[in-house]
C-alpha cells in the first residue's frame, strides 16, 4: 500500500510544479520560507528515489529554468548602452547569480548521487564538481558571458586606463569583472584558465600599450633624471594596482611587473645608463639610488653601472694622487691619510647611492686596489732577477709608506703624542684596512719589522700594549702566521733580555759598583731578530771595550752552547759633551761614539778622514754616514763636528778632509744659548749597512721566488696533475697574503722546477703539469 501510494505521488510530473516555484524564487533571490526550502530537499530526494527517470528529468528541467533566468538577466544587462552602466549591471547580476551557485546545488545533492550512478558516493563533496553548480556556471559562461565578455573586458580596461589618467572611479567594477572571470571555472584542472586567457591578457596588453605611448613622451619632455623618478613611481603604482585588480597567487602580479619593467625601464636602458657616469662624478647619490633601483630589475642593468663606478674611482683616485704627488711622496702621514680619505669617500658613495650592495662593494674594492697599487706616482724598484740589476720591476711604494706611518703612530713622535690612545688605535685600524688592498704585503712586513726592531732596541715605543695589539691585528687581517709569530717572538725576547739585563746589573753592582748604572745589555735571539749577514766591525773606545769580556763572561755562566755576536750598529748610548760653552748630554749611536772619542786625547786637533778610518776601523760607507750625521745633522744650528773643505754629500769626503770638534757647540733654544741640555743625534737607527740595503731588496725578490716554488710544489703535490690556468689561480690564492706573483715570475719558476725534475709537462698537452715525486 505504501509503495502504491508513494508511486503515485513521487513521480517527477507530480512534484516538479511545486519544486519549480521554489527554484525560481531562489534564482530570483526572493524570500523562501523554511518549509519551502525543506520541501525542496524532500521532493528532490523522493523524485530521485521513486521515479526511475526522475533525476534526468529534474536536471533537464532545471537547466531550462536556469537558461531562461540567464536569458532574462542578459536582456537586463544588455539594455545598458553605456559601458560603465553595463558593467555595473553585469556585476550586479553576476553577484546575484553567483550567490545562487552556492545555494541552489544544496537541495539537489541527491540528484548528483543518482546521476553519477552510486559509484563513489562518499567521495563527492558539496562544492567540488557539483553537477548543478557546474551546470549553472557553464550556462552562464555559454550564454551571457561569451556574448559580452569582449565588451566587459574592454570596459574594464577603459576604466583602468581612466584611472591611470588620473580619474577616479569605482574600482569594485573592475574587481567584479575579474572575479567573474576567475569563478567561471569550467576546467577543474586549471581554474584560472578563463581568467588568464582573457582578463589577464587584456590587462597586460592594455598596460603595455599605455606606457609604450606615455613613456617616450615623458622622457622626451622631461629628461632622463625626471623620467627615472616617473618610471620608479609608475612601477610602484602599477604594482599596487596589479595587487588590486589582478588575481593574487596566480603569478599575474609578477608578470605584470615584468611587463612594466620592460616598457618603462628596459626599453630606455641605454639612455638611462648614459647618465650614470656623470652622476657618480657629481656624487648625486639620490639619483643614483633611483637608477640602481631601476636597473636592478633589468637583466645586465647593473654591470655598466659597476664599470662606471670602477672607472670613476680609478680616475678620481689617481688624479688626486697625482695632484698632490709632491707632498705625499715625501710624507707618509699625508699619503696614508689621503688614501684613507679617498677610501671613505668612495665607501660613502657606495653606501648612499647603492645601499652597500655587495656587487658595488666588490667593484669599489677592485678599483681601490688598483689605486693603492698604482705605480705612476711613486714606485719601489725591485730587481726582477738577482743578477740583472738593470731590469727593474716597479711596484707601488704604498706598503713602505704604510709601514712608515705605523711607525709614526707607534713610536714616541710628535704625531703620536698629539693623539689620544683611541685615535691612534683607529688610525692603526685604518692602516690595516688599506693594507688589505695592498698586493705586496711582504714589503710592508719587512719595513714594519725593521721599524719595530728600532723601536724595541731604542726603547721608543709609545705604548707597549698597543704594540702587541698591533701584532694580533696583523694576525687577524690574515698576515702569514710565521711572520706574525716572529714579531710576537721579538716581544717575548725583549722581555727575556730585560730580565737578563737586571741580573747583569745586580751582579755588577756587587762587584763594580756604580758602573752598573751606565750599561744596559740587550742579548737577543738571532733567530727572531737578525737579518742576514750585516754585522759591521768597529774598534770600540776603551771605555766600551772594557765591558765586552765582562758581559760575555756573565753570559757564559748563564747559558751554555751559545755564541754571542755584537751588533754594534744597533747599540747606542748617551755621552756627555763638555766644552767651553757648557755640558750637554748627547744620545748617539755606538759608531758616533767611536768617532767622537777619537778626540778625547787631542781635543783641539784636526783629524783627517783617513786617520779617523784607521782609528775606528769602520767600513768606508758607514764612516761617511756617521761623520755626515755629526757635521750635518738636520735641524740643529750648531753641529758637534766641523769639517773642511766643504762638500755636498758624504760621498764627497776624501781621505784628506779634516774634521774637528766644534768648541762653540751649544744647544740653541728660542734663539738663546743653553748651557745644559740633551740632544738626540741617533736619528733613524741604521739597521742595515749600505751594502745590505741592496741585499734587502734582492732578498725580497729571492724570498718571493722561493715562496712561489714552494707554493707550486704544495699545490701539485695535492693535485698530482693540473692545467696551467688552474695552477695560476690556486697559486695567487695561496700567495695573496704576501704578494702578487707576476706571470713572468711564475713562468720562470715553473721552468726551473721542470728543469730540476720536480714536475713535468703532460706529453699530450703542454699546458698540463704533472707532479713528480
Amino acid at each position: 500500500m505504501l509503495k502504491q501510494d508513494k508511486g503515485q505521488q513521487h513521480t517527477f510530473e507530480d512534484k516538479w510544479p511545486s519544486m519549480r516555484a521554489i527554484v525560481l524564487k531562489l534564482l530570483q533571490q526572493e524570500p523562501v520560507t523554511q518549509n519551502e526550502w525543506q520541501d525542496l530537499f524532500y521532493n528532490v530526494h523522493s523524485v530521485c528515489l521513486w521515479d526511475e527517470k526522475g533525476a534526468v528529468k529534474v536536471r533537464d528541467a532545471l537547466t531550462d529554468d536556469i537558461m531562461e533566468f540567464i536569458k532574462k538577466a542578459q536582456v537586463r544587462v544588455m539594455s545598458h548602452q553605456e559601458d560603465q552602466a553595463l558593467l555595473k549591471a553585469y556585476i550586479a547580476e553576476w553577484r546575484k547569480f553567483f550567490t545562487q551557485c552556492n545555494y541552489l546545488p544544496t537541495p539537489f545533492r541527491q540528484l548528483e548521487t543518482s546521476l553519477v550512478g552510486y559509484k563513489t558516493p562518499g567521495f563527492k563533496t558539496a562544492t567540488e564538481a557539483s553537477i548543478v553548480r557546474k551546470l549553472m556556471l557553464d550556462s552562464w559562461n555559454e550564454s551571457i558571458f561569451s556574448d559580452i565578455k569582449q565588451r566587459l573586458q574592454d570596459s574594464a580596461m577603459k576604466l583602468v586606463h581612466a584611472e591611470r589618467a588620473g580619474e577616479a572611479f569605482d574600482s569594485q567594477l573592475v574587481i567584479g569583472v575579474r572575479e567573474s572571470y576567475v569563478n567561471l571555472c569550467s576546467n577543474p584542472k586549471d581554474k584560472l584558465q578563463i581568467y588568464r586567457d582573457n582578463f589577464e591578457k587584456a590587462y597586460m596588453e592594455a598596460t603595455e600599450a599605455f606606457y609604450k605611448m606615455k613613456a617616450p613622451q615623458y622622457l622626451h619632455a622631461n629628461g632622463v633624471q625626471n623620467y627615472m623618478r616617473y618610471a620608479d613611481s609608475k612601477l610602484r603604482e602599477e604594482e599596487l594596482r596589479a595587487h588590486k585588480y589582478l588575481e593574487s597567487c596566480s603569478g599575474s602580479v609578477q608578470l605584470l611587473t615584468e611587463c612594466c619593467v620592460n616598457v618603462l625601464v628596459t626599453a630606455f636602458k641605454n639612455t638611462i645608463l648614459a647618465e650614470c657616469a656623470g652622476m657618480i662624478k657629481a656624487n648625486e647619490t639620490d639619483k643614483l639610488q633611483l637608477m640602481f633601483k631601476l636597473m636592478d630589475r633589468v637583466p645586465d642593468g647593473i654591470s655598466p653601472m659597476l664599470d662606471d663606478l670602477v672607472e670613476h674611482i680609478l680616475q678620481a683616485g689617481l688624479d688626486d694622487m697625482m695632484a698632490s704627488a709632491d707632498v705625499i711622496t715625501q710624507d707618509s702621514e699625508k699619503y696614508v691619510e689621503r688614501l684613507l680619505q679617498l677610501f671613505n669617500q668612495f665607501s660613502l658613495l657606495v653606501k648612499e647611492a647603492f645601499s652597500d650592495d655587495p656587487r658595488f662593494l666588490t667593484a669599489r674594492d677592485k678599483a681601490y686596489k688598483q689605486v693603492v697599487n698604482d705605480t705612476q706616482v711613486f714606485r719601489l724598484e725591485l730587481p726582477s732577477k738577482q743578477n740583472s740589476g738593470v731590469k727593474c720591476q716597479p711596484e707601488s711604494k704604498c706598503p713602505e709608506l704604510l709601514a712608515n706611518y705605523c711607525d709614526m703612530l707607534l713610536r714616541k713622535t710628535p704625531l703620536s703624542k698629539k693623539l689620544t690612545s683611541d685615535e691612534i688605535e683607529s688610525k692603526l685600524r685604518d692602516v690595516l684596512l688599506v693594507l688589505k688592498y695592498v698586493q705586496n704585503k711582504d714589503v710592508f712586513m719587512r719595513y714594519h719589522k725593521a721599524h719595530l726592531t728600532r723601536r724595541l732596541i731604542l726603547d721608543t715605543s709609545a705604548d707597549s700594549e698597543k704594540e702587541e695589539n698591533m701584532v694580533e691585528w696583523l694576525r687577524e687581517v690574515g698576515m702569514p702566521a710565521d711572520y706574525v709569530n716572529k714579531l710576537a717572538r721579538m716581544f717575548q725576547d725583549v722581555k727575556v733580555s730585560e730580565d737578563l739585563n737586571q741580573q747583569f746589573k745586580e751582579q755588577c753592582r756587587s762587584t763594580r759598583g756604580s758602573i752598573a748604572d751606565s750599561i744596559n745589555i740587550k742579548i737577543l735571539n738571532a733567530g727572531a731578530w737578525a737579518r742576514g749577514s750585516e754585522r759591521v766591525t768597529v774598534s770600540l773606545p776603551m771605555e766600551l771595550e772594557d765591558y765586552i769580556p765582562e758581559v760575555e763572561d756573565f753570559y757564559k755562566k748563564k747559558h751554555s752552547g751559545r755564541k754571542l755576536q755584537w751588533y754594534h750598529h744597533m747599540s747606542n748610548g748617551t755621552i756627555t759633551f763638555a766644552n767651553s760653552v757648557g755640558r750637554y748630554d748627547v744620545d748617539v749611536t755606538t759608531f758616533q761614539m767611536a768617532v767622537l772619542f777619537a778626540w778625547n786625547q787631542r781635543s783641539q786637533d784636526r783629524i783627517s778622514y783617513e786617520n779617523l778610518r784607521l782609528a775606528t776601523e769602520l767600513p768606508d760607507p758607514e764612516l761617511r754616514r756617521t761623520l755626515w750625521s755629526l757635521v750635518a745633522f738636520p735641524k740643529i744650528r750648531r753641529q758637534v763636528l766641523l769639517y773642511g773643505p766643504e762638500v755636498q754629500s758624504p760621498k764627497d769626503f776624501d781621505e784628506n778632509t779634516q774634521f774637528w770638534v766644534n768648541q762653540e757647540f751649544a744647544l740653541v733654544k728660542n734663539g738663546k744659548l743653553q748651557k745644559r741640555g740633551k740632544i738626540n743625534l741617533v736619528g733613524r737607527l741604521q739597521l742595515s749597512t749600505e751594502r745590505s740595503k741592496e741585499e734587502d731588496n734582492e732578498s725580497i725578490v729571492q724570498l718571493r721566488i722561493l715562496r712561489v716554488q714552494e707554493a707550486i710544489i704544495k699545490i701539485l703535490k695535492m693535485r698530482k696533475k693540473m692545467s696551467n690556468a688552474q695552477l695560476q689561480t690556486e697559486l695567487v690564492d695561496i700567495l695573496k697574503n704576501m704578494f702578487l706573483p707576476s706571470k713572468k715570475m711564475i713562468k720562470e719558476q715553473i721552468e726551473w722546477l721542470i728543469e730540476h725534475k720536480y714536475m713535468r709537462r703532460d706529453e699530450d698537452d703542454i699546458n698540463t703539469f704533472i707532479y713528480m715525486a
Partner: protein
Amino acid sequence: MADEDNSSDRVDNETPKPEKMFTLKKWNAVAMWSWDVECDTCAICRVQVMDACLRCQAESKAGSGRQDCVVVWGECNHSFHYCCMSLWVKQNNRCPLCQQEWSIQRMGK
C-alpha cells in the same frame, strides 16, 4: 797611526786629565746569541736550530709562549733539537748523521 796612539794614550791620559771632552754616561749594548753549532739546521725536523722544533712550534702555536726548545750536542759534535733527538734515540741510539753511538756531550741552556 791613530789607532796605535789610541792604546798608548789611554795609559798616559787617564789619570792626569780628570775631565775629558766626551765621557760615557750610558751604553746600551746589543748582541745576538745563537747556538754554537756547525750546521744551523736540525737534521731530524729540518727546522733551523734557532727556531723551535716542528713539534714545539705546533704545540705553542697561538703565541702561548714558546717553551725552551734547546739544542743538544753529541760526542760526535753533531747537534739537533733536544726534543727531536730524544724521540730519535728511542728507536735508534745512533747519530742520524754519522751513525756513531749517540751520547750527549752537552746541552744548550
